[in-house]
């Protein structure tokens, strides 16, 4: 039998098409490496022990760090997580074992819509309900904005994690005579735990990199601030402020801050994948 000819125009076109698509996918991956490479190259020089332990110095004074921003990020994101996790997880439970019909569809739609609303609009909302009436910027208002940003991520991942647990398990629990809430709390949630934790970690990672709502909620601070009722420093906000400043020394600090930020966010994303792996694949 004769070998089929592989160099007809359509075969060549096929090879070219595949090559172009490979080039696109490879190009996107290379851009990530480029960004990472530059952040590491420019940022590594700025990072030192002082950089993570010192307060920011005024322009012209060498040294200084972003310690207040790192701590501020931790506090703001921590409070946000405390607000968003219960509401998000319970709404996720509602969507799987309680919600039926129109209201569940509306809730699911609202969650999808909320995930697409620009963070700056949510920052404005936090401003109008928590900053304007109280007449001062605060870390807490930033946490509120972040909590809203986290909710759709937590709701969606909780919903899909619970859906991943077979319904027979739930029915078996009911058949043993436990009530609905016990079946959910003791059988379903423990089985879905890794998926839910993954969602929470991804939500935290998402808001850790977020800057826009902070501009008019946390506002930023040059000082050591642990009280969330006051304006607070936040790492990504510091990177932004330093980057758009006209000072060369601040630009270096911005790269250093960006490197720390990207390390934290990537660590959380990798962590989420590691948590997810054993159970769900």
């Amino acid at each position: 039998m004769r070998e089929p000819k592989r160099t007809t125009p359509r075969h060549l076109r096929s090879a070219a098409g595949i090559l172009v698509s490979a080039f696109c996918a490879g190009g996107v991956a290379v851009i990530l490496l480029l960004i990472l490479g530059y952040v590491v190259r420019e940022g590594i020089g700025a990072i030192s022990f002082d950089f993570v332990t010192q307060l920011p110095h005024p322009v012209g004074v060498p040294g200084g760090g972003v310690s207040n921003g790192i701590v501020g990020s931790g506090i703001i994101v921590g409070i946000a997580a405390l607000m968003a996790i219960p509401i998000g997880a319970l709404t996720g439970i509602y969507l799987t074992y309680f919600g039926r019909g129109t209201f569940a569809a509306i809730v699911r739609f609202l969650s999808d819509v909320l995930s697409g609303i620009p963070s700056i609009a949510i920052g404005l909302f936090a401003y109008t309900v928590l900053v304007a009436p109280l007449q001062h910027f605060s870390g807490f208002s930033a946490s509120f904005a972040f909590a809203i940003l986290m909710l759709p991520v937590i709701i969606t991942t909780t919903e899909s994690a619970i859906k991943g647990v077979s319904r027979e398990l739930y029915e078996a629990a009911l058949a043993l005579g436990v009530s609905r809430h016990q079946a959910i709390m003791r059988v379903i949630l423990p089985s879905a735990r890794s998926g839910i934790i993954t969602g929470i970690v991804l939500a935290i990672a998402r808001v850790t990199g977020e800057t826009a709502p902070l501009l008019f909620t946390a506002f930023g601070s040059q000082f050591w601030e642990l009280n969330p009722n006051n304006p607070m420093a936040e790492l990504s906000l510091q990177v932004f402020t330093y980057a758009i400043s006209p000072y060369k020394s601040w630009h270096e600090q911005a790269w250093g801050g960006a490197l720390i930020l990207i390390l934290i966010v990537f660590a959380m994303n990798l962590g989420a994948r590691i948590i997810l792996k054993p159970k769900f694949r």
Partner: protein
Amino acid sequence: MAKLEEQNTVQSLGFPRASGIRPTALALDAAAESRPVPVRAKLPRVPRGWAFELCVYGATGAFGALVVGLFIELLWSSRLSIAAFGMSFLWTSEWNPVTNQFGALPFIYGTIVSSTIAILIAGVVGILSGAFLAEFCPQSLSAPLSFVIELLAAVPSVVYGLWGLFILAPVMRDYVEPLLERYLGFLPLFSGTIYGVGMLTAGVILAIMIVPTVTAISRDVMAAIPQTQREAIWALGATRWQSFQMVVLPGARAGVFGACILALGRALGETIATTMVIGNRPAISASLFAPGYSISSVIANEFTEATTQVYLSALIELGLLLFIISVIVNAVARLLLWTIFRPLEN
């Protein structure tokens, strides 16, 4: 048989609860109202049934109220500006805090132009990348490559902005834009003074930011096309590319389109990276090299400096505008994606 079962359940329901015999056949309905069984083992305490249900319904209600409240609050806070300028807010271009005259046209223009550039680039690159991951590349390469592309979505936008401002903008100014001007300079789009920061740079940064969204969703949508359809056309002698063109792409069209719209929504609302590279000049210019301004960046830049109530209200109205646009865009995208993924779930 069915009758026997019915009898059994009726009887078992008739038993007093204290007897300890539980009606298993009707467990699904009965459990909801039954008391918790005494558990002797040491287990974490669980709130009582009604308290748990209250929490679930309360949290869901709170969530719904929050989203609706978000819209109402933004609408209420922009009432001053809405009353003062009405619909002309959308198509006048005077933005003057001194005379309290506010028109959003330059910002709307900037947002639309930068996002359009972004989706044109990211759409083509993302769909092709998704096709490569789902159709052409070996399994062993697909997973790590997907992972790298998805990590790109995790990069904080301030890092994109920083990279765009210090690395990409100079490259655009020194290499890309002069090249475009040389070969396409006869178009007004690619002529004029080159600054580095501007619409085109903002569009490119936005494209990089949204390309993972397009790639990941188009990959999933394409992977959802049944393998038998590909095999059918291969059996007719089609090449891999032809099977992609004739079977996979038409089948995945709605979903791929949805992915692009979802990504577009992300580009429209992106703030920090845009603010850092778009140039922040409220002017409508035909040239893509010229600096512009977007809705989100004007809010970011001017909100804390707004001195009068009308000014503040006008900025919040811009936020409301973003809110409404993103709700519409996302609703359309979700509908399109539903048409693909719904049949798979059932």
